[in-house]
């Protein structure tokens, strides 16, 4: 009897309530301490704009803004986001009201398969918020943590340049 109870207890995962702000709204979600912020964003909050490319911080597809800074959400434990402000691509713009960067990406052909795009937009948004008139080199550095296999980065850089000039 005692042995059976032990087994049952071991299978119960102890979850903690995580409180953070996502795209301007307060969020409360029960998380397992081993979960990453990426997992919570996608699976618990249903915000699937953010992508999992590699899960270990090598590609940037999971980039979100945390306290205004771009980070790989696969390298943030969910609980480390306690009390923090998180912004995902869904918080950049809506279909009716696109972020100027999103408009620019469409206009200049910067989207092919689209997998890197949310991360690129977040990194670009972080750049333009801090530095509204970046040089080409500064743009390249800002997106150097976002891998893209389709575009060769050319039109992405152009789109960011154009968005900066409009803004």
């Amino acid at each position: 009897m005692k042995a059976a109870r032990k087994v049952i207890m071991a299978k119960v995962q102890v979850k903690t309530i995580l409180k953070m702000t996502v795209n301007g709204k307060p969020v409360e979600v029960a998380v397992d301490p081993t979960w990453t912020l990426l997992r919570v964003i996608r699976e618990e909050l249903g915000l699937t704009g953010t992508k999992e490319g590699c899960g270990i911080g090598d590609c940037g597809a999971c980039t979100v803004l945390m306290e205004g800074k771009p980070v790989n959400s696969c390298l943030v434990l969910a609980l480390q986001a306690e009390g923090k402000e998180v912004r995902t691509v869904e918080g950049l713009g809506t279909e009716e009201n696109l972020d100027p960067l999103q408009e620019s990406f469409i206009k200049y052909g910067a989207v092919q398969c689209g997998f890197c795009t949310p991360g690129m937009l977040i990194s670009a948004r972080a750049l333009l918020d801090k530095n509204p008139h970046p040089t080409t080199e500064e743009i390249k550095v800002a997106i150097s943590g976002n891998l893209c296999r389709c575009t060769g980065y050319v039109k992405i850089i152009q789109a960011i340049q154009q968005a900066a000039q409009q803004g």
Partner: protein
Amino acid sequence: MQSYEYYAPRSLPEALEYLAENTGNCQIIAGGTDLIPALRKEDIHPARLLNILEIVEAGGISETGETVRIGAITTFNDLADSELIRKEFPLLAEMALSVGGPQTRNRGTIGGNIASAAPAADGLPVLLSLDGELELSSRRGNRSLPLNEAITKAWTPAWDDDEMITAIKVNKLPPGTRTKFYKLARRNALARSRMTISLIFRSGSGGEIEELRFVPGSVMPVPRRMEEIEKLLTGQVPTDELLDRAARAVGEEMVKVTGIRWSTGYKKPVLGNLFRIVLRQLITAG
């Protein structure tokens, strides 16, 4: 991955208490850029994770006279953005900007970089060239430990399990000192260092090398200042012949530590080449 107990205290005493109560059974996590992949791959199975990112005492960059204190949880971007660091220790800012990518530079910390004791960690060689000291804290008290004593074996910190790094201390360099950090890698971002050069140089009134500090990185299990090379060049006028001789000696000094490995054929001559190239840049930069 296996679950663990997670604790994120906001004060240093709370953290140290937790560490003391769970010595040897507790993994400190800061930026997590090394740890989280290791947890995912199940290379490590900690029973407890202590998140130190919320501890105010472990952060911040401040100066007291000639000493600059860099909090352990200072991120690489914090280092690169700091006017104080850029002014007093340019090579430290250069190194900070060369690590990983923008996202990892917003999370990876200098304390975590040192604590990893990884042969390819870039923070350690730079801070060794600056004769850095660790500020270690535990429930038993604080102490300072020179960096060259803090890591004596790859992957193995030499401080105690109940201690944590709260800061790194470095002393400002004499006026006229030039510094450079150079990283050779397979691509221009998101790349581990193939080898690095940390160089601190000052020339004297007669054009001779008044001070030289040199730490090669990613070429030995544990980085250290190449004092033999520093001795060879200090007080000398840097002629082409001397620099060539020194470059060859750099490779030989490396092999004395590493022995011949698969990468030696490349690293031995190239490390010397890089040393010579970077030193020449510093000499002519004036």
